[in-house]
């Protein structure tokens, strides 16, 4: 059995990264030119890593399935990026960011990694500013901040509601600079379909050119997977349609352990599902919770009237509204962490207080923000004795300036004007904290195979705080991997180019082509999406916001059933040697069908509740997550053994030296 | 071959279009100012106009400017055709269905066509008057100047000739309606405060100048 070695450096927590960087090996510039690195995925982690490694002198090959590196799904992150700059002088520090993140993750993250993340967070902002990322600024020309859930300081930097886009375009521009120089070879519309392991080391990948269908072999001394999360296993999520687990799953099957697969983040503020045709869910930025108040009716009859369309939110008088987050969590109010807010919404809706026709929605109401901002604005504009209408109008203007694009987006999708009627929101799958298990150097259990960003499991424990995903992606790509990969590659300076005409590459390619041939010759009757939708429903109902042992056991059986039917009855039209989007989907869903089972198995094994993993059997009398630190303060790392249901569990114990484990309280 | 930024690039072509275009706009004002004399159809007015015509074709400084003008017209036309050809090539397969009216005015999209029509008009116009003035067989007036006025009056006594002028001025109006403000944009002269003003002046210019130009043949036709 492989022993998990997290390779956490010795020494005090605030010296670990500095000392580690000072002692690991580096590769001399002349030798870097002899080393090839493959980067799969071009989001924040991949784009940043590819650009940084090319700049250092490595030969980089970057891959993405989109038609351009700029379209990776990091682009859709709205709210912001955290950094311990303490520009607001509100008591922020590296330690506080570290502490908030560990606590927010419900004490299931690795301390050393989180501390490093907090340490480099400030550099990210400086780096992005230097790259020309247009962050929001105040009238003095300095960087502005906002607050996010789960913290009591303002440390989130933002670019209106499009922070992810701006950061990604920053990384993309750095990447394209290297492409222009010839230091990065860009392979867009290429999908990685397998990792090739030679003598126990990752030495390349098999990729399919999505335009021509050609199966290509690419050799390299190291392979970096920056391929994002697997939220699409739920079919409906806020992920892009193409987001998938295939790269990570293939790596898993080649020996990389999968960490904490059951930790899924359900984001509380998404636009509710409108019908069976729905292909994806749209997130409304968490920043809206700065000013919007979440409520449902206090009286069941009011809720029923709203569900039946006889009343709407405006008809419910103030005293009959239940601002349940403010009621339950006075200290953090509407800004409790995502897992807490989501579960609270589910609890109210399950109790019958939902506010749309399916009963699966709660109100996000800006009327008090309109009033508050309107009064301030009236003062600013020196309007004496403004009328309530005037205040409302001014307040709406201020809110429009802050969140206009989000309000427009809502109206466009929901067909209702959110300035006039409170928004309706409901939780949706958003992010996966789980991912490939990596050590402190971001290396998986396969030497030479690294995982960065959402694709790894490392920094967020059982729940990620808002505005921390962007931070992690860029930290891994810009500031961690350039050091740690050098330590690994120092052994490879004399290896020479990796040959791709070896039996290992032959075998991997054959597996890929066989699978494609199976799909195309299958003669089934149902499209891929049929199976994907069924899988999603099982996952959402039984491995979603709340789980229990019985449901999870059922889910495993159902997933096996769907998987069996899928292989027998899926219909994939078209040919292998052309652009074939159904074929692409088939491959991805096949992997989701195995991953889903592992997620359920992981959830079933973890007999406690923590963060995004809420087991109904384990809760406090107030309905909060009840951890079991004595038995479950570990990271689950699953080893593939040939069958999804027979995965082998390894445990990485979590040692907390800095943070005291307590019941998370946001009251 | 590296393309010279100030000659070969797409942007440079646009600067030259804008610069020559604006120069032609200035010329239009001067030309109109002189030609408005034609509205005075008295014998005295006739002599004054012929004297003006002589001055315009012989005074050295004016001659220099006129060569610049010919060059501008030719360059504007040549460059415009080149741009139009490149633009056509940039979309080898056309749309089956296009609702261009939803996002732009028809005349802004048809500048090449409008410009070509203006060019055709210019050929007719210059053949009719400019060529005759320079190399034609014109009689002399009482002051001994070439009698361009009589030639003009004779031309504008023919309805079809007047019609060509009126229609051509309408074409010019649409060309200017887009061209005037567009030239400023091409030169990078866009400012939230001044652009609305430029646009309004452009509309004014595009309407007033061609209307007055068209007024001359119509007036002369009616009062012949």
């Amino acid at each position, binding site marked *: 059995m492989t022993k998990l070695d997290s390779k956490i450096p010795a020494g005090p927590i605030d010296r670990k990264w500095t000392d580690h960087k000072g002692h690991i090996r580096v590769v001399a510039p002349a030798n870097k030119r002899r080393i090839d690195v493959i980067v799969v995925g071009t989001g924040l982690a991949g784009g940043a890593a590819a650009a940084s490694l090319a700049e250092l002198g490595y030969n980089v090959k970057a891959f993405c399935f989109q038609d351009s590196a*700029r379209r990776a799904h990091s682009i859709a992150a709205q709210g912001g990026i955290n950094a311990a700059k303490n520009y607001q002088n509100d008591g922020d520090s590296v330690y506080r960011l570290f502490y908030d993140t560990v606590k927010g993750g419900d004490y299931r993250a690795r301390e050393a990694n989180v501390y490093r993340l907090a340490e480099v967070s400030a550099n990210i902002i400086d780096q992005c500013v230097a*790259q020309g990322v247009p*962050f929001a600024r105040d009238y003095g020309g300095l960087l502005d901040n906002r607050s996010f859930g789960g913290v009591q300081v303002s440390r989130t930097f933002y670019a209106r509601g499009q922070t992810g*886009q701006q950061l990604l375009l920053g990384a993309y521009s750095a990447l394209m600079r290297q492409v222009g120089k010839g230091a990065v070879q860009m392979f867009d519309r290429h999908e990685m379909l397998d990792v090739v392991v030679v003598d126990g080391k990752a030495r390349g990948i098999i990729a399919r050119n999505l335009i021509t269908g050609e199966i290509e072999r690419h050799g390299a001394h190291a392979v970096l997977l920056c391929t994002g999360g697997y939220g699409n296993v739920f079919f409906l999520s806020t992920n892009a*349609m193409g987001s998938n687990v295939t790269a990570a799953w293939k790596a898993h099957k080649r020996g990389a352990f999968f960490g904490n697969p059951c930790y899924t983040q359900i984001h509380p503020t998404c636009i509710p599902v409108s019908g069976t045709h729905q292909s994806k869910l749209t997130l409304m930025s968490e920043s809206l919770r700065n000013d919007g108040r979440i409520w449902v009716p206090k009286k069941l009859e009011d809720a029923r009237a709203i569900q039946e369309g006889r009343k709407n939110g405006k008809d419910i008088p103030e005293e009959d509204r239940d601002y349940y987050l403010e009621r339950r969590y006075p200290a953090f109010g509407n800004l409790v962490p995502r897992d807490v807010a989501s579960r609270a919404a589910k609890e109210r809706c399950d109790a019958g207080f939902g506010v749309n026709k399916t009963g699966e929605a709660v109100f996000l109401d800006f009327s008090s923000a309109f009033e508050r901002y309107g009064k301030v604005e009236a003062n600013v504009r020196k309007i004496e004795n403004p009328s309530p209408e005037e205040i409302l109008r001014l307040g709406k203007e201020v809110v429009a300036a802050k969140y206009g694009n989000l309000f427009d987006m809502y109206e466009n999708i929901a067909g209702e004007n959110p300035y006039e009627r409170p928004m309706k929101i409901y939780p949706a799958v958003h992010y996966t904290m789980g991912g490939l298990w990596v050590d402190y150097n971001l290396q998986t259990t396969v030497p030479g195979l690294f995982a960065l960003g959402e694709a790894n499991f490392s920094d967020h424990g059982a729940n990620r705080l808002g505005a921390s995903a962007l931070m992690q992606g860029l930290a891994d790509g810009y500031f961690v991997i350039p050091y740690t990969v050098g330590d690994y590659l120092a052994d490879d300076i004399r290896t020479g180019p990796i040959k791709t005409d070896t039996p290992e590459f032959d075998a991997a390619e054959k597996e890929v082509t066989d699978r494609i041939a199976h799909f195309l010759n299958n003669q089934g009757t149902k499209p891929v999406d049929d199976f994907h939708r069924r899988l999603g429903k099982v996952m959402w109902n039984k491995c979603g916001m709340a789980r229990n042992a019985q449901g999870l056991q059922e889910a495993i059986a159902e997933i096996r059933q769907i998987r069996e039917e899928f292989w027998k009855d899926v219909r994939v*039209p078209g040919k292998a040697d052309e652009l074939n989007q159904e074929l692409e989907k088939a491959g991805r869903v096949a992997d989701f069908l195995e991953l889903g089972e592992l997620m359920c198995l992981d959830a079933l094994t973890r007999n406690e509740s923590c963060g995004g993993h809420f087991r109904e059997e384990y809760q406090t009398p107030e309905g909060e997550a009840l951890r079991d630190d004595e038995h479950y303060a570990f990271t689950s790392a699953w080893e593939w053994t040939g069958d999804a249901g027979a995965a082998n569990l390894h445990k990485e114990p979590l040692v907390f030296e800095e943070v005291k484990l307590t019941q998370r309280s946001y009251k | 071959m590296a393309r010279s930024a100030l000659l070969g690039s*797409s942007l440079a072509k646009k600067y030259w279009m804008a610069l020559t275009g604006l120069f032609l706009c200035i010329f239009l004002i001067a030309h109109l100012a002189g030609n408005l004399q034609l509205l005075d159809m008295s014998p005295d007015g006739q002599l004054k106009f012929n004297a003006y015509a002589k001055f315009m074709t012989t005074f050295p400084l004016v001659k220099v400017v006129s060569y610049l003008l010919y060059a501008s017209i030719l360059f504007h036309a040549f460059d415009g055709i080149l741009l139009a050809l490149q633009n056509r090539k*940039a979309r080898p397969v056309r749309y089956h269905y296009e609702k261009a009216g*939803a996002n732009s005015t028809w005349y802004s999209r048809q500048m090449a066509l409008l410009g070509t029509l203006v060019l055709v008009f210019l050929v007719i116009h210059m053949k009719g008057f400019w060529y005759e003035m320079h190399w034609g067989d014109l009689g002399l007036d009482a002051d001994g100047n070439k009698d361009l006025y009589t030639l003009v009056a004779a031309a504008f006594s023919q309805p079809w000739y007047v019609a060509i002028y009126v229609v051509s001025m309408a074409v010019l109006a649409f060309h200017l309606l887009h061209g005037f403000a567009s030239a400023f944009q091409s030169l990078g002269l*866009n400012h939230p405060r001044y652009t609305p003003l430029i646009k309004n002046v452009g509309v004014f210019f595009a309407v007033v100048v061609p209307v007055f130009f068209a007024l001359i043949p119509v007036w002369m036709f009616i009062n012949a």
Partner: protein
Amino acid sequence: MGTMKLTLKIWRQSGPNDKGKMVSYPVNDVSEDMSFLEMLDVLNDELVRNGDDPIAFDHDCREGICGSCSLFINGEAHGPGRGITTCQLHMRKFKDGDVIQVEPWRAGAFPVVKDLVVDRSAFDRIQAAGGFVSVNTSGNLVDGNAIPIPKNDADSAFDAATCIGCGACVATCTNSSAMLFVAAKVSQFALLPQGRPEARKRVLAMVEQMDKEGFGNCSNTGACEVECPKGISLEHIARMNREYVAASVTKDR
């Protein structure tokens, strides 16, 4: 809420060398809550079940930010409606019995790959020519607040930077010009102090690449600004024109 019956006329082209043609498809039971792409999903589902080749189209985030989707619907880039991409176009914009024309972006620089999918890699090459600030990714830089940036400049730079690179500007321009795309990037960096040192080199290089790709010339019709899902202003094109003239007259050789 009833459902709609629609007739779609869609461009089908099996590959780059195929001539391609418009093909008619009836679609029933379209709900007004569907997005346009979800409606195409429904059609594709049916095509697959019938053993036909589904319609290929680019799409990914389905929330109007990745810039993948790219359909020319009823004669307009991203269809009717302003400030939205095709994935944000909802069927409530249409009515029962409508005939809807769907074509790919058309430009020589955006060759059709299959059906409604085009190759927009020209944009990447333009970006690689100069759409960046040449800083190392070391993080050992000056503090982010070391150079204050006037809020107006930061906001304008952001407005330009919101470009999603979808190519609607090219698709909609009667000349297939890429000026709005290129100008947005040039303008973003020109407005920020961090972008100034390379501003001249950048604008010359990006325009040169733009011309090389075979895009048409800008004739200021303003159609791009109207159809741009992010409402990027023509002011940025003017700024690029200024930058370009300054760069060309002051460059060394």
